[in-house]
Every structure is written in structure tokens, then in C-alpha cells.
């Protein structure tokens, strides 16, 4: 019986020692990995810092201005090119009492890419074909007392 107890304890001690040994090496490996990751993070942070400065340098408005002037036909937006949404005229509507347009135009079939398949994609619809003679533009809504 005493031998059984001793073997049990011995086995426990051996298992514990082996476990600890393995754990220690695992911890060392993990610590190495952690240090490597931390170094990588530090390097990345430094690179990001430098890239931020470079981004700012390349985005210098004067430089962009010169590039845009050389390669694009863009000009600065002036006040005359800006409008508020509220200033837009309303969509033209057809007048039913006008002759020749008694019936509303046929609604167009929806345009779909890959019709009938699972990856069908709806596309923007065509403008309805309407005769210009049947159209009127409603007067602008006056908003806040200003045209």
C-alpha cells in the first residue's frame, strides 16, 4: 500500500515537473512572439507616422492645385455654380387636359442586369419618353419669401 502511495506521488511529481517544463517553454515562446509583435507594432507605428507626414506633404494644396491645373479641366467652384436643393424646380408634370396626351405614358419595364437569375441587379430606369409639347414647368415654390 505504501508503495502505491509513493508511486502515485512520484507520478504526480513527474507529471507536474513535465507540465511545468513544457509550460515554461511555451511561455518563453509566447514572450518571444509578444516581443516580436510589439517590435512590429512599433515599426508600423513609426512607418504610419512617416506616411502621415508624407500624406500631408503630398496633399499640400498648392501642389494639388498645380497638378489639377496640369491634368484636369477643373476650376474653383464659384458662388454662381452653387444652388440649394430648395432652389431646384419641381419635376415637370404632364397636363391631362391637353389634347393628344389623354393617357399617361406606358410605364417602362424595369431594367435589370442578369434578369431571372439570383444575381440580378436593378439598373437606373430610362427617362420616360414624353412629348415636350405636353409638358409645363410649374412655377417655383417660393421658400422663405425668397425666389
Amino acid at each position, binding site marked *: *500500500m505504501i508503495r*502505491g*502511495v509513493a508511486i502515485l506521488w512520484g507520478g504526480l511529481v513527474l507529471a507536474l515537473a513535465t507540465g511545468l517544463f513544457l509550460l515554461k517553454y511555451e511561455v518563453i515562446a509566447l514572450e518571444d512572439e*509578444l516581443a516580436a509583435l*510589439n517590435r512590429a*507594432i*512599433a515599426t508600423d*507605428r*513609426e512607418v504610419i*507616422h*512617416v506616411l*502621415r*507626414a*508624407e*500624406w*500631408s*506633404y503630398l*496633399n*499640400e*494644396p*498648392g501642389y494639388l*492645385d498645380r497638378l489639377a491645373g496640369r491634368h484636369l479641366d477643373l476650376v*474653383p*467652384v*464659384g*458662388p*454662381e455654380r*452653387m444652388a*440649394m436643393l430648395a432652389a431646384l424646380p419641381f419635376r415637370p408634370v404632364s397636363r391631362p387636359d391637353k389634347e393628344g396626351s389623354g393617357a399617361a405614358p406606358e410605364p417602362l419595364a424595369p431594367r435589370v442586369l442578369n434578369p431571372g437569375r439570383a444575381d440580378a441587379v436593378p439598373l437606373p430606369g430610362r427617362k420616360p419618353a414624353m412629348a415636350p409639347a405636353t409638358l409645363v414647368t410649374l412655377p417655383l415654390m417660393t421658400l422663405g419669401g*425668397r*425666389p
Partner: protein
Amino acid sequence: MTGRLFPSRRRGQCVYPGAEIRDLAGRGTRHAARVALDSQVKVAIEVGRTRLVITAGVFLIAFLVIAVRLVDLMAVSGGRAPESVTASIPVARAVVHRGDILDRNGVVLATNLPTVNLYADARTVRDPDDTAARLVSVLPDLPFETARARLASGRGFVYLRRNLTPREQDLVNRLGLPGLEFEAAERRVFPQGRLAAHVLGATNVDNRGIAGIERAFDDRLGTDNRPLRLSLDIRVQHAVRQVLAEAVERFQALAGAALVMDARTGELVALVSLPDYEPEHYGAAPPEARFNRATLGVYEMGSTFKLINTALGLEVGGYRLTDGFDATHPLRMAGFAIKDFHAQGRWLSIPEILVHSSNIGSGKMALAVGGEAQKAFLNRLGLLSPVSIELPEAGVPLYPDRWRPINTVTISYGHGIAVTPLHLAGATAALVNGGVLRAPTLLRRAPGTVPEGRQVVSATTSDKLRQLMRLVVEEGTGARADVPGYRVGGKTGTAEKATDGGYRRKALMPSFVAAFPMDDPRYVVLAMLDEPKGLPETHGFATAGWNAAPTVGAIIARVAPLLGVAPRPATDGPPEGLRLAVAGGDEGVGEGRIGGARR
């Protein structure tokens, strides 16, 4: 199981240590030895047993202590477990040792970049001549003589070159020369170049601030690594600088200054002074380029001061817009004759005095209000104290010690008192924003927060001034500053530059201060040119209406879309009341004809 492995001892039956093993359970019916001992032996055994128990106890305690300490060290780490855990995770340590400076949208204006310095341990350099020659072959801008002298100096540490690029470092490394070493260093860079030079300032080789924000916040940037966020908007700054640079070039001016300020919060969105410098080469810049004309230079601002004078008349003097003064004849005072540049030669109402920029009318109004009240009012607007700005380059106003009547008259139209353009912009912002004076600032305020201000004029006066400023642009000298849709209002000012004991007629300092949109001003814009020349297309004039006003107009047209100010279709002129006020000044409608009737 445990009961079988560790049977409880029947203590009473053990007379000496070890006796119990003879009578473990399961050993059959064998009886424990019953030994009778006589008293002497029994006492000796008792003593031995007690000693054994004590020794065992001491050992037990020792092992317990060791066990507790082991647990403590391994599991709890001496009570510092949380600290050691956090210490093993590196906190986001700053990459560099000086905080960045950002604009209001987060664009980097100044940052430190890691570089390397090349130094030599001259004691280990084998052949200074050869080393210097090879070094110069890869670093062509390093003078050979300097390098050779330093390498031959025999000192243990001598700088050869600061701030190598990675490419240069690689080239030097490839030389494989003994005695050359690299030192990790940092260098302050300004990615936007000279765009915001006068705001940012500059740093020296040790990355210490020596001018501008860099100097004002030197300690803060050096200790706290969080970025410093300025109120500048780099896009607006670029637009303002570009327009001003074009104006300076076109009118062949010596210099110029311009700024855009948030009228509600006092934040400076753009601040430009020309000529400017590359912040990285501050030392090589000439003094006139280093000089910040917008915040440090004090100038007689000329007729733009009539805005303040009008506010004085309306607020302190209690005049109404229909009141006026006779400007038929020059105002003679202390041997001077004060004349009008755009002389009308008649009675002028207060709006007309401003619109036609009448010196005579302004002088008479200031005299009527009184010198003391004028001085107190200027002081209330902060025009007599050093400009309140975060920069070390803050100008101190110049004004007469003794405030005589002639000073009252000249100050009414902006001569005899010198303030910085920023002073004037700050005062104008207060006059148009409902009368609240807020200190100008270069630091971004949290969106939506409005700092505490001081009510300097009433909201009614501010309202009237807004109408008057709009009138100046619609009908007066500032017509070329108008931008359709933005309802610009402002005031021109053309000062003659003072020399010792007089003014130079031909050397002018035109300026224009404006605000937009005039029904609820969001931004104050100021532009100033130093000695612009008259051009054929300006009919030879070099006054503010011909150069500073169109400059401000161009600035507003460029920056208003950036600042999110929506244009609105122009309405037809100012409100009716003002038209009547101007009309009231015409001949025949004689309310308060001379001197202006005070209420």
C-alpha cells in the same frame, strides 16, 4: 479511497513515533503492542516526542513560508501582478518626442520625423583624408575641408552631418569606414511648406520652438505628445495666401497681410503675412520675411477705423443714422487742414460719412462725442492693449499719451493710432456679430462651443453697422469687394505711411476689412497691402478701393464655398430704412444739418 489510503490515526495508542505503522487498518486482528513503561523512561520518551513535534512544527512553518512566498511570487507577483501585466504590454508609446501640430481638419502642419545623425569617433578613424574623400563622394554637399578637419580632430564625438535621409545612411553604411557612427535623431518637418509659416513659426536644430506656435507651445509640445489642433483650415489658408500673393505681385506691393476670422468664436481660419519663409530654413530667411505683419506689425489703419468711429457715434454718442455733420469745408485744427479724399462738399449723414469715407465728418463726430469717451471706447474694443493671440509675435498698439482734440480727430479716421491688422479684425468681428468681443485664437474650439465674450456694443448698434458696411460695398468705396450671393460688407482704409515727422503721400497702406454674409456674419476677412503701385487698369490709383477691396472680394469668392457659406440670390439693395437715411442727407431734407443734433 482516502479513508483507505490515509486512515485516521488512533493517536491514543501510539506511545512513540512510528508506533502507529504497526497497527494500520487491514492488518487483521493483530493487536497493538501494549508496552508498559515505567515512569522514568516514559518521561524521557515524552521529552523526545515533544522536541520532535516542535522541530516538525518549525519545519512545517518554514515550508509553509516558502510555499506562500512561491505562490506569491509566481501567481501574485508580490502584490504587483496587475502592474507587471500592464508593464509587459507596451503602452502606445509616442513615436517621436514632440507633438504634432494639426489644422482644424487634422491635416499635419508640423511633425517630427525620425532621422539619423552621422557622427565620427575621430580616435578610431584610420585615415582622415581617405575617409573624408570617400564620405564626400556619397554626401556631395558636405565640404571636404570641414569633414577632413573634423575627422582629424582626434575627439571622441564630432558631428559630421545631421539628419541623413535613409538613402544617404545606406550609402554611408556601404562605405564600411571605421569610426563613422549613426545616432538616432528627430527632425521637425513642416509638410505644408511655407503655407502657414507665420502661424507655425520655426524650430532650431534641437527641435525647440523659436517662433510662432512652436515657441508659444514649446513646453506643451515637448512634454505632451497629443497633437495640438489649430483653428486654421489649410484649404482656406492656401486660397487666402494665393489670392494675396497674386495681389502683392500684381500691384507690386512690398508686402501684404490677410486673415479670415470666425466672427462668432474668434477662431482664425487663415492668417497670412507676405513675404513669408520656409519654416525649415528660418535662419536663412531675411528679417522682412520673418516679420509677421498680421499680428506683430502695428500700422495706422486709415479709414477702416471709421467703422469704429461710427460705432462710437451710434453707441456712445447716441446718434441716429439720420443725423449728420457738415463736411463742406476742411476741418482746421492745430495748424492742420483735414480734407476729404472723396470730397462731397456738403452736409453728410452718418451713413454718407462712412460710404464716402469723409474725414471731416468723422472728425466732427469724434469731437462731438469727446476724446475721453473715444479713448474709453477704443480700450473697450481692445485696441489699446497688446493683441490677444497665442503667438509670441503679438503687437503692442501705439497711441498718443496725451489725447488732445487733434488726436481725437485723426484717430477718428485711423491716423495717429497704430494697431495690428488682427486688432482691427477682432474689433470688426465684435461690431458685426451682435456686439460681443471675443479674443482671437489660433486654437480650435470644440464645435458648437462659443467662448465667453464681452458685450462691447449693443445688438442694435451692431445691426446698424452691418447695414452700413453692406452699404459701403453696394454704393461706396468698397464696391469691388462685392461677391454676388455672399452679401459682403466692409470698409476701405488707405493710410499714408508715416516717416519721421510726416506722412509720405505716395507710400500708401491700403486695407479692407469685410464681413460676410452681412445679414448674419460668419467670417471677417481683412486684407492689407504695403505700398501697392497704381496700375493703368486702376487709373493710377493705389487706394484701398482699387486693390485691397478686390483682393478681399477674391478671397471671399474662393473661401466662402470652402467654409460652407451658402450663396443666396442677391436681394435688391439694403433695407428701406437705410435708403431713407442716405436720402435724408440730401439737400433740402434738413434734419440736424450742422454738427448733428444729439438726441
